[in-house]
């Protein structure tokens, strides 16, 4: 059955595969095509439809935690302003809550610690593929938003951070479904200790059903907005604007 004809055709097929590989390189120019990017909305819709908006992320037992919770992203903002705050153990740090709220707030770390607290042992999933499990504690974001009195026109919550990437302060955003989710915290401890500088001291976001780049560290300001168009370049987060990561990071 291996005839010369078949061998020739086989060789031709191999050449075709080679040409295909070259064409795959042509895929590169198609990477930011709107058709491909539409998958993000599809996944957001599908995941929320089948899991439910208030579904909880997996919680773990204390002995299931990672022995070492690695630091990722910014290890130290290292700006003069941040260093001054850190030198004073964040006694002068204030969390501003503003935008579309009826009562703009300026909260000290002590005030945040005196709010009703929630602790949870959850898994941090990096977009790169690794995971680490740790215990987080802090008030629910919902508690702070209700103190500030969020307006009906607000649709997204934006987090403005102290760390800088190439001169741009880090920022991230989530919608109100995730903002009011019971596991969404403003965490000030990791594994029962104050957040280290590497993990985002004094305050970071935990939005447990999304990937690591959504878990904004070094939060300075929380802003309620109606649209993400005026935030950064309009896609809702530093990595979304600069690298094309999906705004919805549930997958």
């Amino acid at each position, binding site marked *: 059955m291996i005839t010369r004809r078949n061998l020739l*055709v086989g060789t031709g097929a191999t050449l075709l595969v080679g040409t295909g590989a070259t064409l795959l390189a042509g895929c590169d120019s198609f990477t930011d095509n709107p058709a491909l*990017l539409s998958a993000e909305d599809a*996944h957001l819709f599908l995941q929320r439809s089948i899991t439910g908006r208030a579904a909880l992320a997996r919680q773990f037992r204390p002995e299931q935690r990672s022995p070492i919770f690695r630091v990722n992203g910014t290890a130290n903002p290292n700006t003069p302003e941040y260093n001054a705050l850190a030198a004073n153990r964040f006694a002068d740090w204030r969390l501003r809550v503003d935008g579309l709220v009826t009562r703009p707030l300026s909260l000290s770390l002590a005030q945040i610690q005196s709010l009703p607290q929630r602790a949870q042992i959850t898994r941090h*999933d*990096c977009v790169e593929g690794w995971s680490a499990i740790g215990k987080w504690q802090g008030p629910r974001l919902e508690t702070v938003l209700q103190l500030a009195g969020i307006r009906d026109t607000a649709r997204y919550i934006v987090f403005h951070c102290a760390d800088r990437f190439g001169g741009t302060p880090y920022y991230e955003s989530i919608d109100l479904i995730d903002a009011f989710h019971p596991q969404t915290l403003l965490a000030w401890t990791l594994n029962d200790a104050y957040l280290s500088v590497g993990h985002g001291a004094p305050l970071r976001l935990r939005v447990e*059903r999304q990937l690591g780049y959504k878990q904004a560290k070094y939060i300075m300001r929380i802003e309620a907005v109606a649209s993400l168009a005026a935030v950064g370049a309009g896609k809702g987060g530093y990595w979304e604007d600069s*690298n094309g990561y999906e705004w919805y990071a549930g*997958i």
Partner: protein
Amino acid sequence: MQTAMEPIPEPRIERRTVYRHRLFTRLWHWINALAILILIPSGLMIFNAHPRLYWGHYGANFDHAWLELPRFPGWATIPSHYSLAGARHWHLFFALVLGFGLLAYLIVGLINRHIQRDLRIRTRDLAPRALWTDLKAHLALRFHDPHDPRAYNIFQKLSYAGVIFVLIPLLIASGLAISPGMWPWLADLFGGRQSARSVHFIAMAGMTLFLVVHLTLVILAGPINEVRAMITGRWRAPEEDHS
């Protein structure tokens, strides 16, 4: 149907064209082929972002990895230059194509009885003698039962059924289990998110192996006839002149 005890019948000199693959089967084949040819290279690029695999719920740089590989080269990845964001665009789009494509195939295949008729594996096909006879026929590059050339041989059935009912569903389930927004029980089913990620990688390796064997056999069986059958549906039954 040839049974295990009969010798392989004398080949008959005969050329006839049969209608082998229905339109929906052909459509699904090519859409699925495209999806897999994009999902594997874009998945390798995602793997390149952290080329270590773990078992259990967690796993990062300080934890024990059961497999650590060098990064895959640019010719094997989409995009060809390092871009985790770009690879995710490709991977997450074609994951939907793969998932809903399989769903449509299963529904249509059960309704038009393609699955029951062409992929059903009978116990007698799995008897050692039957497998041995079929293996010998394979080694002699005779892939079709002369009495029923339309039918898939048992190795075809086993590999197609394995891909359609085991490998692709496993790839979809383990891929979803990696997603932080999915049902937590799905990751637990695999023994944790990092186990699901390992299973996803192993299943990808199985799919790549299938792809290599599948393409090799298409070339050995006569690529023009086989590819034409998958494009037009019409397939020329073997001439049976392989002495």
